[in-house]
């Protein structure tokens, strides 16, 4: 056997290393740094974070109830426990400029985007007033007006689609950034890596956000991922990654600011791994036998994202009464959305045949 020829000066440590081509020194030499400090939110911002997170929590609880009553059918994936991720990231984006795409656990993202809870809930109950006219359902909701591009039911597909949205931002030179959310389960899909490759190759303006809620349906990250530190999943494409406490909205916001800076400077994609947790099952029909009640309870008690914001509010001198008023307002909004979704009529029969194609042929 012929010995490997060293490509660098000096004695190689081992033949295997000698055979490897050294990385180009100029390529992504710079790395983004996880901000040591939390985002410094104003009192108003903290109140808004709280309001949005409670809205998501109460909305999802209500959706769970309506599912139990048979008013929501099919699949219904609740966002309870993960609220800080959507709210923290969304708050850093520029509405009307940046675009967002996610998978099937999409209700929370839409609420964080300021989309009317009534039309979301009416979609869940399959009514004509739903945001997709009742034809999409829980997993298929979109608001092009808000640059929210769904709502996709095939695990991982939104990553390629989001990369395409980022391509269109760059092509149109509109300064926008795409945020593509996916879970720890989708992180094992092949098209994710095909997309990573092209996004870095073409320096597309995209933030890949892995919402690592620890379980892909019933399979834990450790049982499904050879590299379970998911923020490293971009490394072989030279996409830098940051691991973030996704249960703390201020940590999420701070990391998002850093990511936006990176992407907007034209340095290409970046990956944020949001360590989070879902309290409920994967979908409504999940008995959640793969984890203990104690495990869930511990997260709820120690790191609940809403309780976390409450503490920040107390530190900022917001009174318990003020918080109570917000809670009551949210309950009213959510109850009204449930009422709206229940009394709204089902789609017109003619809707069966509309929107298959845009044009007439």
């Amino acid at each position, binding site marked *: 056997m012929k010995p490997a020829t060293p490509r660098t000066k000096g004695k190689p440590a081992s033949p295997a290393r000698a055979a490897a081509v050294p990385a180009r020194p100029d390529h992504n030499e710079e790395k983004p740094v996880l901000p040591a400090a939390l985002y410094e939110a104003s009192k108003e911002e903290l109140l808004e974070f709280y309001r949005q997170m409670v809205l998501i929590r109460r909305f999802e609880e209500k959706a769970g109830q309506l599912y139990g009553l048979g008013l929501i059918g099919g699949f219904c994936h609740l966002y309870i426990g993960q609220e800080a991720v959507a709210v923290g990231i969304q708050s850093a984006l520029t509405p009307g400029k940046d675009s967002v795409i996610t998978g099937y656990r999409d209700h929370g993202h839409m609420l964080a985007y300021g989309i009317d809870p009534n039309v979301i809930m009416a979609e869940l109950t399959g009514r004509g007033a739903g945001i997709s006219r009742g*034809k999409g359902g829980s997993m298929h909701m979109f608001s092009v007006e808000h640059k929210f591009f769904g709502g996709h039911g095939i695990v991982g597909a939104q990553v390629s689609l989001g990369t395409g949205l980022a391509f269109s931002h760059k092509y149109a030179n509109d300064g926008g950034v795409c945020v593509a959310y996916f879970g720890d389960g989708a992180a094992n899909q092949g098209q994710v890596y095909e997309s990573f490759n092209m996004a870095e190759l073409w320096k597309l303006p995209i933030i890949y956000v892995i919402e690592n809620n620890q379980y892909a349906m019933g399979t834990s990250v450790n049982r499904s991922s050879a590299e379970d530190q998911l923020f490293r999943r971009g490394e072989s494409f030279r996409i830098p990654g940051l691991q973030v406490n996704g249960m703390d909205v201020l940590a999420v916001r701070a990391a998002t600011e850093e990511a936006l800076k990176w992407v907007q400077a034209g340095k290409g994609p970046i990956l944020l791994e949001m360590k989070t947790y879902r309290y409920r099952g994967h979908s409504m029909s999940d008995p959640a036998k793969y984890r203990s009640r104690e495990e869930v309870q511990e997260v709820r008690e120690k790191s609940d994202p809403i309780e976390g914001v409450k503490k920040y509010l107390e530190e900022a001198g917001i009174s318990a009464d003020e918080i109570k008023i917000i809670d009551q307002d949210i309950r009213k909004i959510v109850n009204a959305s449930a009422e709206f979704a229940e009394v709204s009529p089902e789609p017109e029969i003619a809707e069966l045949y509309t929107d298959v194609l845009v044009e007439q042929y």
Partner: protein
Amino acid sequence: MAIEIKMPALSPTMEEGTLAKWLVKEGDEVKSGDILAEIETDKATMEFEAVDEGVVGKILVAEGSENVKVGTVIATMAGEDGDVEAAPAAAPTAAPASVADAPSAKPAPAEIKIAVDPAVPAGTEYVKTTVREALRDAMAEEMRTDERVFVMGEEVAEYQGAYKVTQGLLQEFGDKRVIDTPITEHGFAGIGAGAAMGGLRPVIEFMTFNFAMQAIDQIINSAAKTNYMSGGQMRCPIVFRGPNGAASRVGAQHSQNYGPWYAAVPGLIVIAPYDAADAKGLLKAAIRSTDPVVFLENELLYGRSFDVPVLDDYVLPIGKARIMREGKDVTLVSYSIGVGIALDAAEQLAAEGIDAEVIDLRTLRPLDTGTVLASLKKTNRMIVVEEGWPVCSIASEIAAVAMEQGFDDLDAPVLRVTNEDVPLPYAANLEKLALIDAPKVIAAVKKVCYRG
């Protein structure tokens, strides 16, 4: 002993080529691997290497000769023993014209008359164009008028297209709009669909539709269904295009007709043109459509020339079949390469006194059932000619339409002339048996006409 150097076949479908340049001269010594000549195929300019060592004897085909058939002896070479004397003495090289005029191994098909497309205004001039050029022209014209249109795929830019369909686009439009991708169909089909959702007009080329199976989830679940699922909010104006169907001797994994697959999906437009005029007019329509379009080309048709109308902006309607030949005795319904076979069969049948009408569906979804049923009403007999499998095919669909909506017009059962129901074999004889041809069409016609 002199070795004969023959015109090589440099692609699965190459039958002839241009001997662009000799890089050796008579008397040169060559080693194995030395480049002897440059040969232009319809796809690319290729370097032709020496296989054996020896001395170049006589050059028999001059550089610049066009239409040199594969297998023609283009030079001789003395073998390793250096027996140069054995090579014939130098003689004036053949003029290019003499090669072009040489009888071809396979006779060119007789000129088949095609009915004038009523979409073309009377008095329009025509120019002979290959399907390959027509497709390129369609893309280039649309790219000139709409900044949102871009082309993406494997080898579409620097290589000028794996089948040369995107030739020249990179030079005219630059690398922002003509984009080479890694080999990653699933990924770039999704990126294309996402870009369309984001407001652009992507033309995504698959090197062949066989490779689009890697990407079929994005074509169907993302591109086709989103408009419906979003209640008409989110559109996906994209064209997925590339060669479809059997090429030549490339085996089962590279020889499949996906027309029936995509035509089964609501939310998609599926187009499969036959001639160059339709290829141009329909690709332009596809790029302009706000709906997702699967545009199925055929590799064996790329090099064929047809009359294309000389019009500033030749756009054809999607969803309209074309009567290629009028007839009264039997209707032959087909699309893509099958149309040529149907027209050939119709000519031969005319000699036997059977007057066949030939319909090119052109669009597979939505199907122009009106044109098909009107023809059935006239002829009362119908054959579907399809280069593809028989089961759950376009032919099956046409037969069902004829039965459900034209039952009273039928004087005989609708017959399907399709490929055999097997993966396409490699061996030349078996491949030929598996594919449709004119004799199979003629036999079916005679059956429904109760003749012969």
